[in-house]
């Protein structure tokens, strides 16, 4: 526990840091900090990126996994967790050295500015913490009424499909509206042709044609259309979907956001050091922490370093104003495509590595070897990896009356992705879809097949509640 004097000291530094942030041009929401212990930090870090959330075993699993990783020194102890909300909430680990807490506070102001100004993040709701707290309370009530297992089963299924959304588009098609429009259209045509019309049959036929366009928002589709779900289940789907829409832009701006926060905390810390507010001993701790944060040579795992380098490059080449403009309008993919230029890739000594298995000193090891240094290909690889945060293959609902039996057909857009789906995950996830749809479900995709002339074969995976099917078509 920190002493009241130490808390007072942190507040004093907080005001200084805020002043510097303002001077540098950062534009922040009000910021609040809570000092907590590492156990609580572990919980926050494994709460699906939101501190107020429903209960789910996967959070418990991750909670124990992260503590294990710390204990075995496989992961660094946490430094901060911060939430994109207004006011912004940051959490600091009370067992960190004092100067690390200062670093964290400076870092959080960088995130805060990014939350408030990035166009994509502004699309998400700012009352997400309250929204989730309410949802968690409702889910508890559902558990009391329908049983822990029933709620858990629906929630696990919903989480399995959480990234099967139409990114950056929260509103749903209104199928009823579409049906009405089509009926009007048909009626007009029938009138013109002087034909009679069975309206009831027309409506039923149209309902069976849902969705009229392939629908990537699978979780939203199930929520609206599934014939089997109870209202409380639709609520669970709606919450998970809403949460995914909030998180998705955060994930897709992680490199920019972390780099931005590192860039600004470095500047703010430099000012504090220049003003002799930080002792030499503390400065050494700061430098040491800083180098650890930036040390990981695997680029995909180090958005702090990569993001910061790209920001420095932008500021040096285009000026600070351009940087503020980029932080307001870009996402990681465009950020890397546009500003991780060939010269910067060479300057940063980026490369593509391959992994091999080897046997050294009686031990099985992975060996990493530089395979390619071509800037264009390096950039493409980085962009590819950013596209997988989170990994959300393009899969769409195409038919809701497949086999004329109300079965659900999903179609994986292999042409766009040129990448196979993981078959184990596919089969298990189909079980979840089945749970939410209540009738057999199918997914069509393609797999490499050397016997086929194109090198690929179309495969139809199915699950009917008992058996899995795999058909070559």
């Amino acid at each position, binding site marked *: *526990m920190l002493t009241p004097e130490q*808390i007072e000291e942190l*507040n004093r530094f907080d005001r200084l840091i805020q002043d510097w942030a303002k001077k540098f041009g950062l534009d922040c929401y009000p910021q609040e*900090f*809570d*000092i*907590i212990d590492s*156990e*609580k930090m*572990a*919980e926050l870090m494994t709460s699906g990126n939101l501190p107020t*959330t429903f*209960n*789910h*075993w*996967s*959070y*418990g*699993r*991750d*909670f*124990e*996994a992260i*503590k*294990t990783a710390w204990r075995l020194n496989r992961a660094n102890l946490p430094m901060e967790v911060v939430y994109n909300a207004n006011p912004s909430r940051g959490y*600091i680990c*009370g067992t960190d050295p004092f100067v690390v807490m200062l670093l964290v506070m400076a870092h959080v102001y960088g995130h805060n500015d990014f939350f408030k100004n990035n166009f994509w993040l502004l699309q998400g709701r700012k009352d997400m913490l309250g929204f989730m707290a309410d949802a968690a309370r409702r889910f508890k009530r559902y558990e009391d009424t329908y049983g822990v297992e029933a709620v858990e089963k629906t929630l*696990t299924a919903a*989480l*399995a499909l959480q*990234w099967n959304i139409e990114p950056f588009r929260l509103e749903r098609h209104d199928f009823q509206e579409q049906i009405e429009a089509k009926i009007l259209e048909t009626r007009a045509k029938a009138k013109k042709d002087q034909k009679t019309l069975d309206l009831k049959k027309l409506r039923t036929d149209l309902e069976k044609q849902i969705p009229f366009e392939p629908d990537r928002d699978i979780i939203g589709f199930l929520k609206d259309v599934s014939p089997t779900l109870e209202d409380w289940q639709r609520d669970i789907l709606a919450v998970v979907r809403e949460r995914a829409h909030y998180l998705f832009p955060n994930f897709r701006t992680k490199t920019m956001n972390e780099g931005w926060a590192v860039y600004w905390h470095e500047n703010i810390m430099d000012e504090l050091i220049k003003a002799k507010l930080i002792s030499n001993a503390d400065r050494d701790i700061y430098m040491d922490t800083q180098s650890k944060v930036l040390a990981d*040579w*695997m680029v*995909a795992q180090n958005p702090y370093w990569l993001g910061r380098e790209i920001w420095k490059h932008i500021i040096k080449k285009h000026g600070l104003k351009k940087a503020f403009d980029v932080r307001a309008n870009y996402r990681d993919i465009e950020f890397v495509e546009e500003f991780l230029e060939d010269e910067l890739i060479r300057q940063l*000594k*980026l*490369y*593509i*590595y391959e*992994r091999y298995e080897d046997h050294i000193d009686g*031990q*099985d*090891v992975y060996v*990493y*070897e*530089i*395979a390619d240094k071509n800037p264009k290909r390096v950039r493409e*690889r980085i962009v590819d990896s950013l596209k*997988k945060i989170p990994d*959300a*293959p393009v*899969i769409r609902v195409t038919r809701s009356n497949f086999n004329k039996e109300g079965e659900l057909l999903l179609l994986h857009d292999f042409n766009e*992705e040129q990448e*196979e*789906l*993981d078959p184990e*995950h*596919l089969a*298990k*996830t189909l079980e979840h879809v089945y749970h939410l749809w209540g009738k057999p479900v199918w997914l069509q995709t393609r797999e490499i097949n050397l016997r086929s002339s194109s090198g690929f074969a179309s495969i139809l995976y199915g699950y009917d509640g008992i058996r899995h099917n795999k058909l070559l078509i």
Partner: protein
Amino acid sequence: MSVRQQDWKPERGEGDAKRHRDLVKEDVKRRAIDSIANTPIVGKSGKVKVRILGKKSYSFKHGQSDNGSGTGAGEGDVGDIVGASPMPGEGEDGAGDEPGEWELETEIEIAEIMDWLCEELGLPKLKKREGGQNTVSKTWKPSGVKKTGIPPHLKKKLTVIQAIRRQAGVVLGLKELLKKELRTEPTLEDKAYTWAWNESDFDTVKTIELLKKMVRGEVTPPADAQPVMLDNDDLRYKQFEEITEYSSNAVIFAIMDVSGSMDEEKKLIARSFFWWAFNFLRVTYENVQIVFIVHHTEARVTNEEEFFHTVESGGTYSYTGFRLAKNIIQTDYPPDKWNVYAMYFSDGEDYDVEETQKSVQELAPLCSALGYAEVGGGGELLDHLTPTMFMNATKLDDFVYYFAETDDQYFMGAEIMMREEIWPLIKAFFRNSEEVE
């Protein structure tokens, strides 16, 4: 003040972790038993750290087409090696390659694990069986009459009355028949009828003939002829109710071969077994003791520390261990007051198999369960014991073991190759309880 100190506890995280543990309970159980291997047997309790594989979360995702390839930064040219990392092997520390395949440590209360054990080993059934076996007679009280028993308990008067009741009918019947034959009232004593009936092997015609002779004075019943002849059906014995008390004493004999070939890994398996057996018995009995016996060419009692760390060279005489256990039981742990469990760990090398066979036959009747685990494979003792103890092979899941069971003894033997088999071994050792209705 925008910086505040909070003393929040990770309640939701703990709750979710508990739920996750419940969902992977089978895996936790199996691994709890592996990870217990280094825990001292006596005294310690509380929590056990268990490393488990987390339950997977599924979603539609792309296959692992990159084979661990990625982008890096730093000095070097194409073809240069820039790093190496240990491959996470089976049962190894490393988290799985695939995200979502988490390996994590979780803490489990020993009490919780013991609950599972009891569930798994059918503790209620065990108690029933143990209730029969472990009761100690304190005193007896007569509680009625039964038709079988031992001579000292024969209720003579009641038996005779029973016989008279039965025979009275016979005598009456014979008198009537004889009267018809003689056309006059016979003057024979009742005991004459009984004697004749008995003498004629209960054949009515023969009896009447004999009685006629007696009337004519041709035959005279001997002077000592019993007035009442006893039939088995007449016997009545005292019935006693055993005043018994539930015995809350159990002792487990940890017997181990400590000749050089019993290496650390083998001892670890033994240690793990004894830890579980000991703690399991503690759930069942109030007072549980453990006796450590090591042997090579001769046997001696040791403490726990020594038990697991003694290495002796020279020959191996398994019977010395069994004999010493037998002697200690007879002097210190009489089976009418103690529930005796004994398990012997060895690599199966034995210089006097015949003597060992005898010693096992002597020890088994003193034990509620006697077991032999041949660690590591390649030994021969189990092969020799299987026929002498009339053991049958059976299977528990995939674990093969041998057992011989009678009303008052249970002997089991198994070959155990790896730590994963400790759990099945425990189940097999305590399984006799499940066989009894």
